[in-house]
């Protein structure tokens, strides 16, 4: 019952946060010095052309009406028209998500796998050489910018070894090649996440290892390694999940950069091209969508943490 109440509370907060986010995005992108139509057409445009485009884009109506129109349309799946592509924005973003979504998931899966393995290994060998090596590697992993790692991977695997193409995406009609095209980007994107999560996993585990229940488990005769995975790790999961949720925003930001290194037709590349095309509406919707994903994921993480750890459901917490 408490869990259900907590979940409803979290969802209400999620909706309120989204509304607030949409207001911020709209405000930042619409309080322009001048008019978006002017920016799009450039300095040589005639006033008539600007007025015509303003009318076509609905820019001549007052801001509250434009905001309501934007949100109302978005709720019906109508995101408006892209100025540069002349086509509806919804399908444009949907097709870019077919690249960005799997990329982000692959990177996250990779990061989680590496982080849990390396984090458990380091916590188990705390203070010894293996721990120091893992911690040293994680420092390097955090320091190396994802787009530089991406360029280095291209240099090694595409330029020198010629085992993969340097970039581009063949489309999901060829699933094997499509997954192949996402492997290097996922590694470049996931490496820093893996490094951060390894450190979090290690310190959360070390804290759990000092708890009484670990001594009880060991006293009952549970082998060390088994106690680590079965008792310590589940108890360390709350901080790990929380950081994973917070890191996801950085993962998405990283995807924008990495997609551009590998020329992947994802959401990041769509947004960057829209910036150079001065296609403000596409950027606005792209930014909003990413905010929805990040805020949504963090709400899910909060609910998941409360499901794992009943103490978090208490209103005081």
């Amino acid at each position, binding site marked *: 019952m408490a869990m259900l109440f907590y979940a409803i509370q979290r969802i209400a907060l999620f909706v309120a946060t989204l509304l607030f986010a949409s207001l911020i995005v709209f405000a*930042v992108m619409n309080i322009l010095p001048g008019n978006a139509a002017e920016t799009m057409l450039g300095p040589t445009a005639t006033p008539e052309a600007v007025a015509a485009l303003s009318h076509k884009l609905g820019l001549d109506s007052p801001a509250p009406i434009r905001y309501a129109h934007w949100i109302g349309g978005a709720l019906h799946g109508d995101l408006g028209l892209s100025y540069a592509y002349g086509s509806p924005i919804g399908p444009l973003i949907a097709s870019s998500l077919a690249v960005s979504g799997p990329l982000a998931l692959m990177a996250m899966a990779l990061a989680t796998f590496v982080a849990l393995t390396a984090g458990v290994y380091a916590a188990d060998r705390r203070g010894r050489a293996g721990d120091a090596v893992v911690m040293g590697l994680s420092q390097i992993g955090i*320091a190396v910018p994802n787009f530089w790692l991406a*360029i280095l991977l291209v240099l090694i695997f595409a330029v020198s070894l010629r085992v993969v193409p340097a970039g581009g995406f063949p489309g999901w009609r060829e699933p094997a090649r499509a997954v192949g095209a996402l492997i290097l980007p996922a590694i470049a994107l996931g490496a820093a996440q893996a490094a951060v999560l390894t450190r979090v996993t290690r310190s959360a585990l070390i804290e759990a290892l000092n708890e009484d229940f670990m001594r009880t488990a060991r006293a009952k005769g549970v082998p060390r390694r088994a106690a680590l995975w079965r008792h310590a790790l589940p108890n360390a999961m709350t901080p790990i999940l929380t950081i994973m949720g917070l890191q996801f925003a950085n993962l998405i930001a*990283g995807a924008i950069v990495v997609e*551009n290194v590998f020329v992947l037709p994802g959401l990041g590349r769509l947004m960057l091209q829209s910036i150079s095309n001065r296609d403000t509406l596409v*950027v606005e919707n792209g*930014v909003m969508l990413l905010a929805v994903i*990040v805020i949504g994921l963090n709400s899910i993480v909060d609910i998941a943490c409360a499901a794992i750890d009943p103490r978090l459901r208490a209103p005081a917490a």
Partner: protein
Amino acid sequence: MNLAARFRRRGGASLWFGAALVAALIAAAALSLIWTPYPPAAIDVPHKLAPPSWAHWFGTDSLGRDVASQALAGSRISILVGVIAVGIGLVFGVVLGLMAAFARGLIEDAIMKLSDFVFAFPALLSAIMLTSTYGPGVVNAIIAIGVYNVPIIAKLTRATANGVLAREYALAARAAGRGPIAIAFDHVLPNIAPALIVQATIQFAIAILAEAALSYLGLGAQPPQASWGKMLADAQNVLYSAPWLALYPGVAIALSVLGLNLLGDGLRDALDPGLKARS
């Protein structure tokens, strides 16, 4: 208290290694102000894509510009963005965090909810929003990264300030009738400064990474301003003919970030051992 002794005892290797790397970064920026082997933006097309040599230590890029000079000058923009963006974060973050800690109740709730909210907009996303409406440039990059720093500092300030305000000396100051601003300056800030310094160092590293990414995408520093991110973007275009160009700026970014992070870790151990257990 003997600070030097504390540093020697607790800081360890990461403090000194980190400090050395950060000192090298600052020295490179300082040196580039008075001397670079060539003017960083000087174009010399006949000598383009020259491999590293005595004349050009790191070689030349696709326009014949000296890469070593550009790498030196690029450190300036990293430091500039880092200092201002972290400064924005510290000023607004500390004020908001102290307000939350002193006011409690609704104001505290509102500030903390707002901080959570800003996390949904990483620096890169804010910068994309800003540049798509106001055009690319260093100023927008600094604003975006600075805004991203505010909630991180605000949360840390509130959490550590709450700890201080619960102590007897803070309660005594309150009982003696001292106002919140006096208590903030006399008791809270001196006690939370170590934690803030540590976090600021780490945020500095994140700012350098974010600036490099933005400049790589063409949203940050604009030519002829030298920047490591921009250099990597240029290097990628000639990856097949001059692969070495992709090494120097990347190494420079990675060493700067590594240095700041190690310095942060070392300072944490040296200044605030309590934080070590919590992190």
